[in-house]
C-alpha cells in the first residue's frame, strides 16, 4: 500500500475525516476523481503524472460536503485553490485536511494553513511553461489577428459549460449566464454568444485564476480557454505584483483599492 493510501486509511480509521478526495484508476484506463469513505478501499487511491484534475472543485459541491469532514489530495494548484476558497469564505481551514503532494510526487505534511502557505510561497507560481510559450506567440500577433484566432477557437464552443463546472473558483450556485431577467449574456451558442461567455468568464477569474488549466482540459471540443484566464493571471502579477491563491487572507486585487496600486494602465 502506498504512503498516500496509508495516510488516507489512517485518517478514515481514526475518524479524523469522513471522506478522502483523491484519484483512482477507472476501468477504461482513465485516472479520475475518487471519494473514499471506507478505510478498506483506501488502497484504490493513486498518484502519478496523469492525476491532473483540480480536485478542489469538489470542496464546494453540496453532495460531497454532505459526507462530512474532508481530506483532499493536494498538488500545488489544489493548494492554491484551497487558499482562494478560504480567502473568499467558501471553505474554512477547519473543514478540510490537506494531504499535500510535492512536485516530485512525495507526500507533504501539512498540519496547518501556515505550513501550506510556506510551501506555496516557495513554489514556482508562474503559468506552466507550455502555456507561457503559446501565450507569448499569441501576444506577438496584432490585435486583429489575435481576435480572429480567438474567434476561430471560440466558434467551436457548444456552451456545455464544462469550463465553468470544472473550475474550483466558479462556485456560484447561479451563474450570471443563468440570470435571464435581464438576460446579460446571450444564451445561444453562436459566435457572439460564445465570445461574450468566454470574455465574461475570463474577467470573473482575473486575479482569482490559479493557473491550473482545468477549464481547458475539461473542454470536450478542445478549446484552449485556459489561455484567457492564464493571460489575466499574468497581467495581474504584472500590474499588482500578486499571484492568486498564495494567502488565506488575500483580497481580490480587482475588488480592492490599495494606495500603492500601479495606475499606469489606466487611460
Amino acid at each position, binding site marked *: 500500500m502506498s504512503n498516500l493510501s496509508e495516510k488516507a486509511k489512517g485518517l478514515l480509521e481514526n475518524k479524523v475525516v469522513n471522506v478522502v478526495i483523491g484519484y483512482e484508476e477507472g476501468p477504461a484506463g482513465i485516472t479520475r476523481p475518487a471519494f473514499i469513505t471506507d478505510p478498506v478501499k483506501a488502497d484504490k487511491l493513486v498518484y502519478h503524472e496523469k492525476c491532473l484534475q483540480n480536485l478542489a472543485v469538489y470542496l464546494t459541491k453540496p453532495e460531497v460536503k454532505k459526507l462530512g469532514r474532508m481530506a483532499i489530495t493536494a498538488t500545488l494548484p489544489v493548494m492554491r485553490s484551497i487558499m482562494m476558497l478560504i480567502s473568499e469564505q467558501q471553505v474554512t481551514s477547519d473543514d478540510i485536511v490537506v494531504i499535500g503532494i510535492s512536485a516530485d510526487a512525495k507526500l507533504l505534511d501539512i498540519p496547518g494553513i501556515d505550513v501550506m502557505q510556506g510551501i506555496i510561497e516557495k513554489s514556482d507560481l508562474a503559468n506552466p511553461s507550455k502555456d507561457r510559450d503559446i501565450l507569448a506567440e499569441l501576444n506577438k500577433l496584432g490585435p486583429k489577428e489575435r481576435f480572429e484566432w480567438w474567434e476561430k477557437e471560440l466558434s467551436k464552443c457548444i456552451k*456545455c459549460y464544462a469550463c465553468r463546472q470544472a473550475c474550483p473558483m466558479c462556485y456560484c450556485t447561479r451563474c450570471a449566464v443563468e440570470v435571464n431577467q435581464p438576460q446579460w449574456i446571450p444564451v445561444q451558442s453562436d459566435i457572439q454568444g460564445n465570445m461574450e461567455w468566454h470574455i465574461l468568464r475570463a474577467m470573473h477569474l482575473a486575479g482569482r485564476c490559479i493557473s491550473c488549466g482545468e477549464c481547458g482540459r475539461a473542454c470536450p471540443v478542445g478549446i484552449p480557454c485556459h489561455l484567457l484566464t492564464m493571460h489575466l493571471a499574468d497581467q495581474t502579477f504584472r500590474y499588482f505584483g500578486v499571484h492568486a491563491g498564495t494567502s488565506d487572507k488575500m483580497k481580490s486585487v480587482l475588488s480592492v483599492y490599495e494606495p500603492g496600486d500601479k495606475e499606469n494602465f489606466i487611460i
Partner: protein
Amino acid sequence: MGKELKRIKKDSLERLYNHLSVNRRIYAPVRTPDNKVEYRYNPAFADVTFDHIRSTLSVKNLVFPKVENLLYYTVTKTETTVAEADVNKIRDVVLWGAHPCDAAAYDILRSIFCWDIIDTYFLKRLEKLVVIGLSCKTADEYCFCTSVGLSPDSSKGSDILLSPLKNGDFRAEILTEKGSKIVSSQPSLFEEYPGEEILVAEVRKKFDSDLVTKNLSANFEHPFWIENSLRCLGCGACAYVCPTCACFDIQDETKGKNGRRYRSWDSCGFGLFTIHTSGHNPRSVQSQRWRQRIMHKFSYMPERNNSLGCVGCGRCSQGCPVDMNIAEQLEALQSI
C-alpha cells in the same frame, strides 16, 4: 422496399461524392490538425476520412441545430407583428459517412420530436436529409452499440450503407427510396456485388439493456446514484455531444423593436434545468440529474417511446472531463 446490394469501387466512390456535392450541401467527416474528427460542409474528397471511430460531436445538428430560429417579431406602440421561421427555406443535405450509431439516432430523435405534436422544424430537416452510412471497420473501448440493439454494420437510419471490403472497394446497401434515387442518378458507378465479406469491427456486448431497463424502474431510490455521481461536475458535455439528447431551451432576444424567438440545446445535467418559478428545484442535487440522464434513456424511453434513448456511440464517456463512463454504470446496473 427490400434492400439491394451493389459494389462500388474506391474511385467510383469519389465520383459519387463529387456528383452529390454539385449544387448541394454534403456533410462529411474530416480529421483536424489536432487529430480530432469533425464534420464539415463540402470538404474535398481527399480530406474525407473513412477510418475514423467517432467524431467529437454527433451529427444531430443537421436535424436539431444548436440554435434554431422559430419566429421573428416586431413590436411598435400600436401593434406586434409575428412571422414564423420559414421551414421551406430548409435546404437539402447529404450526410456522408455517418457510422451506424449516428444514423440510427435519427429514428430515436423522431420518436421524441414527433411523439405527440409534430415538430415541423425537425421533421422538415429530416425529410431534407439523405444519409449515406459507413459501417465501422474499427471500434474502441468506448463503443457499445451491440449492447443497445445495434451493430457496427447496422443499416438502421441509412439510405445507403457503405461497408468496406478487403480490396478497398465498398459494398453498398441500397435501403430506401432516397438511396435508390442516388443510385439511379449514377447507375454506372454501382456494379454487381459478388458476395465478398465485409470488414467489420468487433464490439463486445457489455450489458443486457432489457435487464437494465427492468432494474431501473425498481431502483429510483438507491445509494448507487449518489455513490456513482459524486465526481460528476454538472456540465452539459455529455448531453451536447450525444446524438439523441434532445432537450432545448426557448429564448426571446429583442434588439430595439425587432426580435426573434429561438431554441438552443439544453441539458438535464444543469442545476437550473428543472428550477421552478417558486424557487423549488425537484432535481436540486447532481445525483438526481445523473439518475435522470440514465433513467430517461434506459427506462422512460423504452416504456413510452418503445425504443432505447441511446445508440452506444460512447461520445458522452469520451467527452466527459471526469470519466463518467455510462457503459460501466449500465453494466453495474444489471446487478443492482
